[in-house]
């Protein structure tokens, strides 16, 4: 039965995607879209790139044009958060209202992980070190990022790398600090990951690897490292990944083990309750495991699938997992599963060159592909990655 009213909690890529797709599929009931932030729904990829450097004005980061929601009779409630969920489903809002819709879609996303320092003396404790997740974070950071400002970026992952690159473009003196010997080695393999450090260094970013941060001494304005060294900084930003925004769901009866646990169609254990996007851990039909994706395209796919599931239409098939990162005017892209590969093979360019593509295999099957400045060459492998084509082991010669 089609619900009389649907509430989507969260208005980022997944939430807006669900609302749009419901209308596109012909849903005519009441549709409420909650946006906890006091902003128009916006897109996150520009936050660490164009919005930080100033090439993308905030209004260009809007997910949809003004009027989009009213045109589709989507009741967008800005600055209103879902605060509690109970079976029924029953949903309490920050306004004090309690709704009893036919279906609830949880799309509250993730928040930036903060450092869990054991404060040594006067070291700053979380959340005093800023992170970059929302529009306000980006605008605040942009205001303070001036030429010559000393910025320390803690965490050499994709967000850390993008922030470092953007800040350097603005003329800041940037130090990128990473606890692992090579950032992103676990995701892309050691050699490709190592190659990604060169553009940082070429741009004049100081890169410190294999050195965990133990704290920030705000008195002397220095980042303190485990090896006893310190990094002077006017500004510190931490990019340490994200954790699902599930705090408000405590007591709902939902399984919240690293995200809202869902079946392979986005349905949770509570009737009428679904989840999509960064907050959701969908069951992967291939492996049977529950996996939480933090990728923009996956959020979009899940949004379409959840809308179809609620309305009882055929959900679209998913492509392979996909993400990208833009740094120093170059683009890193990856398809499928590149982490945990037993074989990495270069098939285009060279890791120390301006362009490359590498294929990733596990147990004789192709599982993923990654590319650097090679969008078209990379995407030619998408079909084979989706199919999991046979992939010879490590002893196979390198293709040219």
């Amino acid at each position, binding site marked *: 039965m089609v619900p009389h009213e649907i509430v989507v909690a969260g208005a980022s890529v997944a939430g807006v995607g669900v609302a749009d797709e419901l209308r596109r599929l012909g849903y005519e009931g009441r549709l409420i879209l909650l946006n906890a932030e006091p902003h128009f729904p916006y897109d996150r990829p520009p936050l660490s790139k164009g919005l930080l450097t100033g090439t993308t004005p905030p209004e260009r980061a809007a997910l949809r044009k003004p009027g989009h929601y009213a045109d589709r009779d989507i009741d967008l409630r800005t600055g209103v958060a879902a605060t509690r969920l109970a079976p029924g489903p029953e949903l309490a809002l920050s306004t004090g209202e309690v709704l009893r819709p036919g279906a609830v879609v949880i799309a509250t996303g993730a928040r930036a992980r903060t450092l869990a320092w054991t404060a040594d003396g006067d070291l700053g404790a979380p959340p005093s070190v800023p992170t970059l997740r929302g529009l306000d974070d980006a605008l605040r950071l942009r205001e303070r990022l001036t030429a010559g400002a000393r910025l320390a970026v803690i965490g050499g992952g994709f967000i850390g790398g993008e922030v470092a690159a953007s800040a350097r473009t603005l003329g800041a003196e940037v130090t990128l600090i990473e606890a692992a010997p090579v950032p992103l080695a676990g995701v892309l393999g050691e050699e490709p990951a190592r190659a990604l450090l060169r553009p940082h260094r070429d741009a004049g970013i100081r890169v410190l690897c294999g050195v965990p941060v133990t704290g920030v001494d705000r008195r002397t304005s220095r980042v303190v490292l485990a090896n006893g060294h310190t990094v002077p900084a006017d500004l510190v930003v931490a990019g340490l990944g994200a954790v699902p925004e599930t705090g408000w769901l405590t007591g709902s009866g939902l399984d919240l083990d690293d995200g809202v646990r869902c079946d392979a169609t986005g349905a949770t254990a509570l009737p009428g309750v679904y989840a999509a996007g960064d907050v959701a851990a969908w069951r992967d039909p291939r492996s049977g495991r529950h996996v939480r994706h933090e990728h923009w395209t996956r959020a979009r796919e899940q949004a379409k699938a959840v809308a179809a599931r609620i309305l009882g239409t055929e959900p679209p098939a998913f492509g392979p997992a996909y993400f*990208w990162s833009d740094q120093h005017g170059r*683009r890193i892209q990856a398809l499928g599963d590149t982490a945990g590969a037993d074989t990495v093979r270069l098939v285009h360019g060279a890791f120390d060159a301006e362009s490359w593509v590498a294929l990733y295999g596990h147990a004789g099957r192709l599982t993923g592909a990654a590319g650097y400045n090679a*969008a*078209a060459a*990379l*995407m*030619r492998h998408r079909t084979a990655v989706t199919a999991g084509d046979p992939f010879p082991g490590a002893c196979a010669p390198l293709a040219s």
Partner: protein
Amino acid sequence: MRVVIDEEKCCGYAACISVAERVFEIDADNIAVPLVERPEGELAEQARAAAEACPTDAILIEED
């Protein structure tokens, strides 16, 4: 059918290449360009699949 790229929306992900490499290419500015403006038959099917696969909805299919 006519294939149009919204250059404002295209971000050069090249997802279109993965499903329709005979219909699209990526130019030097990292923007998708239709190789065939009016694809027919199998290529028309591929163009529709590319529009569906595009992460930014930058491919517009104008049916005749």
